[in-house]
């Protein structure tokens, strides 16, 4: 076990495991976001629960942050090692003849997603941490109205067309990342499943539907401000 993460296959497996975790998280995150379109009340309640439940905050959140950081760091490590393994590049290389654009550019789609996450942290996570743990206001309420603040804040964020644009671009890149990543994760785990037709179709649906869901939420709030 000791040298597992030092071996090429061990790293692949670790990459895949963190990917599965992050793909599962995306479903939960989207499910919460989608409620904001149908019910302000439900979205507020869910947000408050997620934001204040000790299990979510102090157990799941650190695991999530670790998962994200791990996936990125390991991705960079693998990319650097692979660049070293190439040595001299070809004068003419026809990559499109045998592989998809997505599979050849995971590092670039990943970098855009990383940039997005930085923006996302500054946008939502840091203000949340500030209000809750630095100012110590765990009520989740707006002082004047005594209503929940989450829906308000969400609507406010998506007023800016620049932010909505950045979100849309990032989620398109996430879709491209997932179009390769979903089935690739199975293959790395040694599962034949990733190359089965049904799983590939499911992977494509997942890779497009999840980012599209996030895009719809952002665009919906941009145009339905009240």
């Amino acid at each position, binding site marked *: 076990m000791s040298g597992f993460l030092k071996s*090429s296959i*061990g790293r*692949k497996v670790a990459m895949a495991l963190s990917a599965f975790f992050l793909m599962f998280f995306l479903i939960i995150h989207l499910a919460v976001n989608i409620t904001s379109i149908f019910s302000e009340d439900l979205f507020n309640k869910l947000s408050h629960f997620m934001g204040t439940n000790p299990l979510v905050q102090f157990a799941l959140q650190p695991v999530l942050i670790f998962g994200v950081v791990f996936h990125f760091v390991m991705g960079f490590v693998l990319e650097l090692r692979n660049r070293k*393994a190439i040595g001299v590049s070809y004068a003419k*290389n*026809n990559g499109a003849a*045998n592989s998809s654009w997505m599979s050849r550019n995971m590092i670039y789609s990943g970098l855009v997603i990383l940039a997005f996450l930085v923006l996302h942290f500054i946008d939502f996570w840091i203000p949340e941490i500030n209000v809750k743990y630095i100012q110590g206001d765990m009520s989740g309420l707006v002082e004047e109205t005594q209503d929940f603040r989450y829906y308000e804040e969400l609507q406010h964020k998506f007023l800016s067309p620049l932010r909505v644009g950045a979100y849309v671009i990032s989620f398109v890149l996430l879709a491209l990342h997932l179009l390769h990543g979903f089935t690739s994760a199975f293959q790395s*785990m040694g599962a034949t499943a990733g190359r089965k037709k049904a799983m590939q179709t499911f992977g494509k649906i997942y890779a497009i539907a999840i980012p599209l869901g996030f895009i719809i939420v952002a665009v919906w709030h941009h145009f339905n401000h009240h």
Partner: protein
Amino acid sequence: MNLTLKIWRQKGPEDKGKLVDYKVNDISEHMSFLEMMDVLNEQLIEQGDEPVAFDHDCREGICGMCSMYINGEAHGPDRGVTTCQLHMRMFNDGDTIYIEPFRAAAFPVIKDLVVDRTAFERIQQAGGYISVNTSGNTQDANAIPISKHAADEAMDAATCIGCGACVATCKNSSAMLFVGAKVSQYALLPQGQVEAADRVRNMVAQMDLEGFGNCTNTGACEIECPKGISLENIARMNREFLSASFIDS
């Protein structure tokens, strides 16, 4: 047909090397790519120039010696063939063809288009065998029942000729298709079970030591492999490695 060739020339391992343009005329579409190279080399020798060094041996697609990265693809644009089996009819009159050596840090250039693929030999030596007692009372292999399915898959894996096209093609210079095939051909058979855990551990360790990159499942190797070795062999190697690391350790 008349062709312009852009060929990588490199005097030796230390030389920097560069692409040099050559013209060959009246090439028959029935020639193999290596025969076209022979025509060029005769031309160069007549002119008193140094012929282009390239690897070849059987010239019938079984030895795995011929290499070459032709117009951006290992063994050229055709599928399921080695360079010796590639016909000039895949090209058109007036074409410009790039001819480069297989590239990977673990496959250093020896001269021109000849690369050192002994890293593959060392991976094989690390575990690509079974230990059989040959003292005279060796059991007939056919005495051990093997399912048709397993026998077929093992045979498919064993058709790997160790050409290195998978590495040359891979954007990560990963050798996992080759190693996957070599691990699988034994993992699928009862004779391979005894040393299975050590085999996969040692072969993967040697593969990493040689400086091959990490598979990111682009699938390019499977498409460029002249023997149609399937990605399933990489998945199987991953499974073998996982069980060797966590179950049989």
